[in-house]
């Protein structure tokens, strides 16, 4: 579970958000939505501990996040950032294997290898394992990075998963497959899942909760069904829309 109280972030003179309170419960999928520049990625960076907010506190499972060491934190939470460039000819499998770094002191390379193989099968990327990463397509690279993140938290209790636009380069089939997998992690293993996403349909199908950011002071949070209403969306994104699709949570 992640809790943030009175968050205040700014870049030089520009305030990104202030007095923001966020609660991301365990065992559920929470999506962060908002127009460009509303501070979604900044919020994600604060929540996962890679950015220290100007004011306010972030708690991971009840403990202030800055009290964890880098390794402790890496064993509890994983982050998928937006695409990163790798200029060296690592194989896809080597990249996924890097996800096991926080556990490298266990010196159990065979176990790590098994985990990596399982994850690769799970996300349907096993055939890519010996391909050279920089030669993969954008979507394939994104799936390998996801595999790395999943491998990092493999069967960790109370883990937190942060994904920044995880489906931006994926085809339709893999978008649903990845988000379904993420949901399963939340439901079956009690992961705390936090996703930044733009696709309202996917948000509606796969999340339990949403956090809508509009600008530095305005935000709306709540259950998908309560918060993702026509009026709220129109207000946050400044576009008139009408909703037609049923939600996952309503089934």
């Amino acid at each position, binding site marked *: 579970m992640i809790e943030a109280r009175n968050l205040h972030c700014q870049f030089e003179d520009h305030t990104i958000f202030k007095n923001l309170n966020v609660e991301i419960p365990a065992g559920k999928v929470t999506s962060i939505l908002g127009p460009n520049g509303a501070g979604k990625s900044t919020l994600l960076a604060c929540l996962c501990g*890679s950015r220290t907010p100007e004011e306010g506190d972030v708690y991971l499972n009840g403990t202030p996040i800055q009290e964890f060491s880098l390794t402790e934190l890496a064993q509890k*939470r994983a982050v998928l950032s937006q695409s*990163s460039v790798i*200029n060296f000819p*690592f194989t896809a499998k*080597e990249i996924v294997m890097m996800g096991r*770094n926080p556990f490298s002191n266990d010196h159990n390379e065979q176990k790590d290898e098994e985990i990596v193989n399982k994850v690769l099968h799970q996300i349907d990327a096993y055939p890519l394992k010996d391909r050279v990463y920089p030669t993969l397509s954008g979507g394939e690279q994104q799936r390998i990075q996801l595999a790395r993140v999943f491998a990092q938290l493999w069967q960790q209790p109370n883990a937190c998963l942060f994904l920044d636009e995880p489906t931006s380069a994926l085809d339709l089939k893999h978008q649903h497959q990845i988000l379904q997998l993420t949901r399963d992690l939340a439901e079956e293993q009690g992961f705390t899942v936090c996703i930044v996403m733009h696709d309202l349909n996917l948000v509606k199908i796969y999340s339990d909760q949403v956090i809508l950011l509009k600008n530095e002071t305005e935000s709306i949070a709540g259950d998908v069904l309560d918060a993702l209403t026509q009026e709220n969306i129109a207000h946050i994104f400044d576009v008139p829309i009408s909703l037609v699709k049923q939600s996952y949570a309503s089934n």
Partner: protein
Amino acid sequence: MTTLTKQALFASRWLNHKSSWLLLLLCVLLIAMVIAMSIGAVSIPILSLLQGNITEQQAAVLSSIRIPRVCIAAIVGAALAISGAAMQGLFRNPLADPGLIGIASGAALAVALMIVLMGPFEGVWNLYALSVAAFVGGLITCWVIFHFAQLTGTFSVTYMLLAGIAINALTNSGTGFLMYISNDQQLRSLTFWTMGSLGGALWPAVLVACTIVIPCTLVLIRNARELNIMLLGENEARHLGVNSERLKRTIIICTALTVGVAVAVSGIIGFLGLIVPHLVRLLIGPDHRLLIPASAIFGAALLVTADTFARTVVNPAEMPVGILTSLIGGPFFLWLLYKQYAGRFGM
């Protein structure tokens, strides 16, 4: 099969694969060193060298000239190659090279300052003093370039290379000015030394270089796993538990030290740091746990060979080996640029 034996099997397979490459490269290095020892103004046939069947004169040539020279070539080659490998990891781009981005010329400027303004120290301490000066010069330029490369927030190769051009121009003008104001004797040693030569190699140089390069290599190998992860990006590395600030500091200091000592004992020998890690990567992949030791060995073999050529090809005179490495390195760099453009080799 029990887990334990399976584990042992896995470990031994990995080790075998790994050590076989290192062994092969080690053999190449040994052969290169033996050949280098046998060739020269006084020829010593390889067979009699291996049998120990040599005259007193040959023995004297070997112990006071040729062996220290071959040793220093090997150490400097290893130093340049690992600093190249480490730089490329740090800058997350295979185009980084301590010579290309100005670290070597920064170190050279510091050494030139030392020679012209401070005058020589006594014996071994002279070399240590030059090494320290070179280290400080290398450290400062490395730090400056690193910050320029990060100006845009993400790592920019363009900024790295452009900052390197500026630094190279600046330090070269500094060195040029020092040459201008230096006296005849200083000028001679400066000129010879900036071209990159192993001509002055003596046992003290071997000692100084060993005591700096070997510890640095070990430190880099210890950090190799984390250096791999840094290639994902600095934020990603932190998310995976890597203390990126500490790692960057370690890499920068080790690189400045190894480049510093290489520059102090042999001047600027260009492009080795670019070529060697690249070739090793083609052979055994980009994993730094293997890349760094393999680069060290291969770099040593390459510079021993290049130096043998440099001192025999225009016999009885001697060509600075830096000229030779740049002659090969320049076109190689252009080829790399082309490849990067063509998007092959995953670059």
